[in-house]
């Protein structure tokens, strides 16, 4: 936060300039905000326009008549209910399991170091940073051979595998910073390794776990490439596949198209607005060391 001490010291004359600057800055930010929001606005308006209205009126103008039927049409055509349930199942299964597996591994790598554990950490983390497209073709064949193609259960496995490395990286940082005295004291009391994990380390990492839960939930919900490769039946589709399907099949039904897009982002928006802090606490996204 910028300090205001200098201006108080130097009196009235110095105070005038920061106010103008600040006001101008605020206006500039507001303009930027408006420009930033135009896509949302256009989408919302178009989603309520009947096709003829969409063709006739400018996109940034509200509809002459709010054609709510677009939403029902889009939900039906795009099988929104089914795909939403699919996405929810996948996310609710994958995220908790992923966190559990990642915490255990991070714990082991940071609190139970052995020869090569740092190399192992490095190898694991590398995996989180390569584009998933590199592995898509063999992944398809592998899931096919396992009989898990076109199933939500089959989707969860690669999701876990690709999501865990990053979580291990973050949690490793957390666990590493836990004071060794805590652990030593617990061991003196006869605590087993598991107890140290469960009773000491995990509770201390709860803020990180909470934020990771939210971030991972959204990332899972939004994933496209792996889902598109592994899910063939439309009844198994997740939301991103449905959005792309709708966009290619009904590209000229502008009203329902925009309605579908909006409906597809509403769950993520709700999560975002409720848990904003977890997203914008940037220390997370980049693992910045403090």
């Amino acid at each position, binding site marked *: 936060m910028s300090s205001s001490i200098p201006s108080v010291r130097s009196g009235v004359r110095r105070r005038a300039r920061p106010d103008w600057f600040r006001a101008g800055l605020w206006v500039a930010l507001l303009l930027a905000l408006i420009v930033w929001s135009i896509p949302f606005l256009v989408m919302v308006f178009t989603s309520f326009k009947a096709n003829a209205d969409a063709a006739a009126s400018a996109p940034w103008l509200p509809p002459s008549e709010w054609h709510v039927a677009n939403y029902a049409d889009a939900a039906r055509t795009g099988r929104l209910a089914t795909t939403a349930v699919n996405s929810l199942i996948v996310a609710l299964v994958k995220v*908790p399991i992923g966190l559990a597996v990642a915490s255990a591994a991070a714990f082991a790598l940071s609190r139970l170091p052995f020869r090569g554990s740092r190399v192992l950490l490095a190898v694991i983390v590398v995996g989180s940073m390569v584009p998933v497209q590199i592995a898509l073709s063999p992944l398809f064949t592998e899931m096919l051979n396992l009989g898990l193609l076109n199933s*939500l*259960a089959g989707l969860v496995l690669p999701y876990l595998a690709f999501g865990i490395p990053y979580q291990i990286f973050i949690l490793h940082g957390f666990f590493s910073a836990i004071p060794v005295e805590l652990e030593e004291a617990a061991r003196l009391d006869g605590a087993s390794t598991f107890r140290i994990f469960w009773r000491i380390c995990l509770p201390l990492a709860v803020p990180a776990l909470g934020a990771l839960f939210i971030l991972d939930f959204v990332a899972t919900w939004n994933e496209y490439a792996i889902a598109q490769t592994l899910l*063939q039946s*439309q009844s198994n589709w997740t939301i991103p596949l449905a959005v792309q*399907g709708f966009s290619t*099949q009904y590209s000229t039904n502008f009203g329902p198209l925009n309605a579908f897009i909006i409906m597809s982002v509403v769950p993520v928006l709700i999560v975002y607005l409720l848990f904003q802090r977890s997203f914008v606490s940037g220390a997370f996204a980049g693992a910045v060391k403090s």
Partner: protein
Amino acid sequence: MLRKFLATATAAVVLAVGLSGCSAAGANDDKTLVFWTVTQGDEQLPVLEDMIQRFEDAHPGVTVDLEQRSIDAHKDALRQVAGTGVGPDVYFYWEGSGLAGELVDAGLSADLTSYYNKYDWDDRFTSAALAGITQYGGHHGVPWTRQAMAVYYNKTLFKKAGIATEPTTYDELIADADALVDAGVTPIEVGGTVNWHIMRLLDSLVETECGATTATALFSGSASWADETCVTASYEQLKTWGDKYFNDGYLSMSNDDSSLLFFSGDAAMAIEGTWFDGTVVENGMDPNELGIFRFPTGTGRLSGFGEALYVNDASTKKDLAATFLDFVTSTPIQKDSVGTWASLSANKEVAAGTDNPLDALWEPFFTEADGVYNPADQSLSGEVTTEYWRIQNAVLTGEIAPADAGAQLQTFIDGSAK
């Protein structure tokens, strides 16, 4: 918080197992047929759903699960499921060697000869239709439509440009296009994002410039695109069309977008097939204001292809699939749906519909035709088709000179996996 995680996880796992059990059961039980096809138009979907409903009514306990995709997504999906157990039981596809042929090679189509014998299908379909089925040895697929493509035109716009008669030679067609430009009308609409829409014009240009024999040789690989001079001429003509006669911004548009121009009377011509008869009516045009003429290639061959319904070789419900196919191609069902997907049914006992005056225009095209030439993407392999489309678009944007296009294509064909 941890206990909450665990509780959520357990509940979710139970839920997941339960629900995935449900959906798996739904798709795998003996009484559900999974049917993949392309996205149906507003008038086509109710007809298809009605057929399905009547089939289900006639076979209690049986459900047909219909899945639609955009044309390109449909192709991608089927190519992906070849050799897996997760494909559909029945699917719609185009019969050409570059499309269905690849799927037959990949083991995605069951040989239906035993069903042909059982249901006497050899007697049901026209010989032209059956030719497309037997071209791979045995019987692959059941004919769904015989499609032909030609030029639809807006009579009012033609009159406005002072065009009195339909063009019968390529030069007349060019003269007509020029007349339309002079009258301030977009001569033809094409959608560039779906490469096969522009491809239709190029196919006809190759046919025109090269003649039937050479064109066939080029697409079947026995002639070289680098050696034939007519290839350069074809690409030069394509560039002319792109520069002078296409709708503005065609490269950004899908065929759905560009067709809007035809429907609204902003473009005079469109290269489409018999399915378009119904589409124009759906989109508010008066069929009496439209005409159709064959692209004046001068060869006597008709631009066309077949579409069929195939049975997945990996399907465990082939008998049920065959029953379904027998049902939907049967005379009563076909009579009720004639004109929905094509002007003529593949079922030889079904006469052309009389509802749409455009349907009647196709008959002479079929009877007078001296053979058929397929769209390029039905003759060329998937990989070559991708390159064919890239070159076609690159010629249009000026990135590749027409004189170089043939050589580039041939180089690619020579290097591609066989």
